[in-house]
C-alpha cells in the first residue's frame, strides 16, 4: 500500500516501524529467544545490573529481566491487540454504516458515540475489572470499544463525503451489493485517517495497559507483564534504580514509536505537508524584459512576446501578443490546457508561486506594467484592470455580505470618501448591473444569491475601480443559458456605455460570436490565429481554428457525424517542435517541422501556419 511505502521511505517512520516490528517479533518468539525461563530464580545474583549472563540484569528473586520483558510483552501486546481489534471493528463498522445508510441508524450511532466519549474511561475500566477481576482482556476490549466512538466519527465523515461521489452511484447502478460497495469503494477511501488513528490509539492503549499492571489490577504475579514489571521495579527503586530502565524503557519507546508512526502516517497521507515551504521571495513572480516588437499606442492594453514558465521550467505560454482597443471586446478562445487563463493571469501578475514571466511589452493605458513592482501592480489590478472569475459564488467571500464586499472595494479605490458617498457609490454600482432592490441585495450573503445574481455582484465589484479593461475568465460557463444571455447583454452594455475594453476568455464559439469584436485563438500556449470575429467564422486561416469550429454541434447538420481531430491537445512540457498542431493536422507537410512564425495580413489579422486555409494569397490548399 502507498501509505506504508511512504512511511518506510521517511527515516523517522522507518525507525518506528523497525522498532515496533522488532518488539512484536521478539515478544511473539519469547519461548525461543528468551535466554531464561521467566520464573527461573537465581538467588545467588539478585538485583544485579546488566551482566553477560543477564543482559538486562535480574530482579529481587534473581529472575532474568530480559526474559521477563519478552514474556511480559507477549501478555501486554496481546491485550493491546485485542483493544485495537475492538476499536477497529466497532469504529469502522459503525462509522461506515452510519455514514452510508444515514437516517435513524446514523443518529443512534452518533448519540451512542457522544455517550461513550463523555464517560470517563478509567472509571468504566475499574467497573469492568471489578466484575471480571484481573481480566485484562475484558478491560482492554472495553477500552477499545469506548475509544471507537472517535474513530466512528472520522470514518462516518469520510463515508458521507465518498457516498456522494458519482463512482459510488455507478457501482450501485452496476448492481453491486451494499456490502461490496462498502468494502470496495468506501472503506479504501477512508483507510488513510484510520491507520494513523490506530497507531495513535495503540500507543495510548499500551500506556493504559501498563498503568493497570502497575496498579496491580492486571495479570497477577508471578506472571510477568510490562506494567507489573514497572511496579516491581518501583518497589526497589532505592536498591536498584536500573530495574526501571528496561521495564519503563520498553513501554515508553514502544508508546512513542506508535505515536510518531501515527504522525508520520498522517503526514504521508496528507499531501499538503509533502510540499516544501515557500519563502516570500520564491512566491513572487519573476518578471524579465526581452527585446521585441513595440506596442500599439492606440490600444488600451498591448502585449508583446509574453511567455510564462512555472518554477520547474515548464512553459505554459509562449510568445503571445495581442492588442485590446477601448470600447471593444477581445475573445481569447481555445480548449483547456492551451494557456488562455495563464495569459490573462500573467497580465495581472496573479500566477502560481515561483512562476516566471518574460515579455517584450505589457503596456496598459500608456503605463509599462513590466517595470511595476508588486505594489504598483496591486494598484493596477482592480483600478485599471478589473477581473471576474468563472465561479461567481466562489469568487465572493462567504463570511461577508454583498454590501461589505462592495464597500471594501469602493473604499479601496476612493480613499477619503465619506460613508454616505461610499454607500451611494455601492448602490450606483448595483444599479449599473441591473440588480433590483440594491439595499436588499447589500444585506445578503453570497450563498443566498443565485449564480446569475452573484455574477452581477462580482461584475459590480470589478467596476468599483472604474477599470478601463475588464478581464472575464469564462464568466458564463457555470451559468444557465438564459442567465448567460443576460450577463453577456450586461457586459456588452457596460462596454458601450463606459468605453471599457473587454477580454473574454472562453471556449464557446457562441459567446465569441455574440459579444466579441476580435478573436485570438490559442493552441498549446501559442496564439495561432488573430482576426476579426466576422473573419474567424467566415474564413478561418489556421487549420486548428477551422477544426474547432467544425466540432461545434451548432454548426453541424443534425444526425451526421461531427468532423473530428485525431489525438488531443499536448500537455505543457510535451509540445512538439515546429508547428505544435502539425501532428493532428490534415494538411501538415515536412515544412511544418521547422519553427513557424505569425504571418500578418494587412487589415485582416495574422496566423501561425505554413498552409493557411481559405486564403487568396500564399500557399492556400483546399
Amino acid at each position, binding site marked *: 500500500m502507498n501509505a506504508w511505502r511512504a512511511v518506510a521511505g521517511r527515516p523517522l517512520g522507518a525507525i518506528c516501524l523497525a522498532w515496533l516490528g522488532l518488539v512484536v517479533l521478539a515478544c511473539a518468539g519469547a519461548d525461543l529467544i528468551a535466554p531464561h525461563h521467566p520464573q527461573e530464580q537465581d538467588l545467588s545474583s539478585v538485583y544485579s545490573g546488566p551482566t553477560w549472563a543477564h543482559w538486562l540484569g535480574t530482579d529481587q528473586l534473581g529472575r532474568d529481566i530480559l526474559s521477563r520483558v519478552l514474556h511480559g510483552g507477549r501478555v501486554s501486546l496481546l491485550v493491546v491487540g485485542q483493544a485495537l481489534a475492538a476499536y477497529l471493528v466497532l469504529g469502522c463498522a459503525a462509522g461506515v454504516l452510519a455514514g452510508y445508510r444515514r437516517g435513524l441508524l446514523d443518529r443512534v450511532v452518533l448519540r451512542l458515540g457522544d455517550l461513550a466519549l463523555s464517560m470517563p474511561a478509567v472509571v468504566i475500566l475499574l467497573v469492568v475489572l471489578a466484575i471480571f477481576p484481573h481480566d485484562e482482556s475484558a478491560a482492554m476490549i472495553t477500552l477499545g470499544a469506548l475509544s471507537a466512538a472517535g474513530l466512528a466519527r472520522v470514518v462516518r465523515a469520510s463515508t458521507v463525503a465518498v457516498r456522494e*461521489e*458519482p*463512482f459510488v*452511484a*455507478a*457501482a*450501485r*447502478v*452496476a*448492481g*453491486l*451489493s*451494499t456490502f461490496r460497495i462498502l468494502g*470496495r*469503494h468506501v472503506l*479504501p*477511501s477512508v483507510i488513510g485517517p484510520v491507520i494513523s488513528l490506530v497507531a495513535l490509539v495503540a500507543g495510548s492503549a499500551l500506556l493504559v495497559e501498563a498503568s493497570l499492571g502497575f496498579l496491580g489490577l492486571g495479570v497477577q504475579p508471578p506472571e510477568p507483564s510490562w506494567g507489573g514489571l514497572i511496579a516491581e521495579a518501583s518497589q526497589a527503586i532505592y536498591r536498584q534504580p536500573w530495574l526501571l530502565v528496561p521495564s519503563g524503557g520498553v513501554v515508553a519507546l514502544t508508546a512513542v514509536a506508535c505515536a510518531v508512526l501515527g504522525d508520520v502516517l498522517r503526514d504521508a497521507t496528507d499531501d499538503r505537508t509533502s510540499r516544501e515551504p515557500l519563502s516570500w521571495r520564491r512566491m513572487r513572480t519573476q518578471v524579465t524584459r526581452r527585446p521585441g516588437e513595440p506596442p500599439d499606442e492606440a490600444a488600451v492594453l498591448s502585449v508583446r512576446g509574453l511567455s510564462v514558465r512555472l518554477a520547474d521550467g515548464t512553459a505554459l505560454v509562449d510568445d503571445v501578443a495581442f492588442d485590446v482597443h477601448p470600447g471593444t471586446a477581445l475573445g481569447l478562445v481555445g*480548449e*483547456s490546457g492551451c494557456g488562455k487563463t495563464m495569459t490573462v493571469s500573467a497580465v495581472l501578475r496573479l500566477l502560481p508561486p515561483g512562476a516566471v514571466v518574460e515579455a517584450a511589452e505589457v503596456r496598459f493605458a500608456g503605463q509599462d506594467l513590466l517595470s511595476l513592482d508588486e505594489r504598483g501592480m496591486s494598484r493596477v489590478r482592480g483600478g485599471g484592470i478589473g477581473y471576474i472569475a468563472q465561479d461567481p459564488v466562489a469568487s465572493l467571500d462567504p463570511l461577508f455580505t454583498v454590501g461589505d464586499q462592495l464597500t471594501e472595494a469602493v473604499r479601496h479605490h476612493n480613499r477619503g470618501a465619506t460613508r454616505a458617498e461610499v454607500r451611494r457609490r455601492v448602490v450606483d454600482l448595483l444599479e449599473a448591473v441591473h440588480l433590483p432592490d440594491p439595499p436588499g441585495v447589500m444585506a445578503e450573503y453570497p450563498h443566498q444569491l443565485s*449564480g446569475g445574481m452573484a455574477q452581477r455582484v462580482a461584475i459590480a465589484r470589478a467596476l468599483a475601480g472604474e477599470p478601463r479593461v475588464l478581464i472575464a475568465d469564462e464568466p458564463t460557463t457555470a451559468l*444557465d*443559458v*438564459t*442567465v*448567460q*444571455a443576460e450577463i*453577456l*447583454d450586461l457586459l456588452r452594455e457596460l462596454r458601450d456605455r463606459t468605453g471599457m475594453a473587454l477580454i473574454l476568455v472562453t*471556449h*464557446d*464559439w*457562441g*459567446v*465569441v*460570436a*455574440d459579444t466579441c469584436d476580435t478573436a485570438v485563438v490559442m493552441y498549446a500556449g501559442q496564439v495561432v490565429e488573430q482576426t476579426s*470575429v*466576422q473573419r474567424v*467564422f467566415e474564413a478561418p486561416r489556421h487549420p486548428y481554428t477551422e*477544426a*474547432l*469550429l467544425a*466540432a*461545434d*454541434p*451548432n*454548426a*453541424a447538420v*443534425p*444526425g451526421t*457525424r*461531427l*468532423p*473530428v*481531430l485525431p489525438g*488531443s*491537445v499536448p500537455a505543457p512540457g510535451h509540445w512538439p517542435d515546429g508547428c505544435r498542431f502539425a501532428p493532428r493536422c490534415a494538411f501538415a507537410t515536412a515544412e511544418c517541422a521547422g519553427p513557424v512564425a505569425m504571418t500578418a495580413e494587412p487589415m485582416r489579422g495574422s496566423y501561425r501556419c505554413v498552409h493557411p486555409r481559405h486564403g487568396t494569397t500564399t500557399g492556400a490548399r483546399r
Partner: protein
Amino acid sequence: MRPLLDIANLEVRYGDALALSDVSLSVRSGQTVGLVGESGSGKTTLGKAVLGLVPVSQGEIRLDGKEITDLGVKERRALSGRIQVVFQNPYSSFNPRRTIGQAVAETLPKGTPRDEARERVGAMLDRVGVDRDAAHRYPGQFSGGQLQRIAIARALMPDPRLLICDEAVSALDLSVQAHVLNLLADLRAERGLSYLFITHDLAVVRHLADRVVVLRRGEVVESGRVDDVCETPRHPYTRALLAAAPVPDPVAQARRRAERRALA
C-alpha cells in the same frame, strides 16, 4: 409498439420540496430522447429516479412493460444489465484507487474467469477507442475525454438496452465532445441502444436526439420531435431557451439577440 422505458405521472420529493411533478415520457427501442432544462429543473433527478438512486413518491416507471419503480436491492441488481449510466464528471466517476480494468469489469457477473474478464474488458476498451493497456492504469493518468470513453465502456459491459447520459459531454472540450458524440451515435447504430440524454445544451440534443422533452421546475413544459420543437417551439420557455443559446455566427447571432430582446 411498446416503449422500452415508460414513465407515467412521476413525482419525486426531497423532503417538502417537489423535485418532479406529474412527469410522463417514454423512450422507444433504439430511440434517443433528449431531456433539456436549466439547473433546478429536475432533469438529473429524473435520471436518478429511473436508476433507482432516489425514491419515487408517486407515479410509475416501466422498463419493457415491467414496473421498476420501487425495486428491492436484488431485483435492482438484476436490472443493472439493462439500464446503465454515464455521468458528467469523468474524474469523479471512477474510484481513484482502482485500476481501469477493475472498474470496467465491475459489472461482470461474479465468478467470471479472469482470462475471459480480461478479454472482454480489452475488447470493450478497443471498441471505445482506448488502448488496451489502460486496464492496468489508474484513472488519474487519463484525460477527461479518455475517461469519458472508459465510462461508456464500463456502462456497456453488461450490454444494456438503455443508457442514461447525465450531462455526459458537458464537461468536455469541443473537439473531445465531438469524438464522444460520434462514438455514442456509432454505438447506438451498432447495438440498437436507446439513450435518455440529459443536458442543458440544446445544440447537442439537436445533433443526437430524435425526441426532446423540456423540463422546467420539475414539470414537462413541451415535448415532441426534436426538429419540431427546435424549429417551432410552442411554449414560451422553450422559445426563451432556444433564443438564449448563442450560435457561432456573428450575423445570425446579432439577429437572434434582437429577436430575444423583442421576446422579453
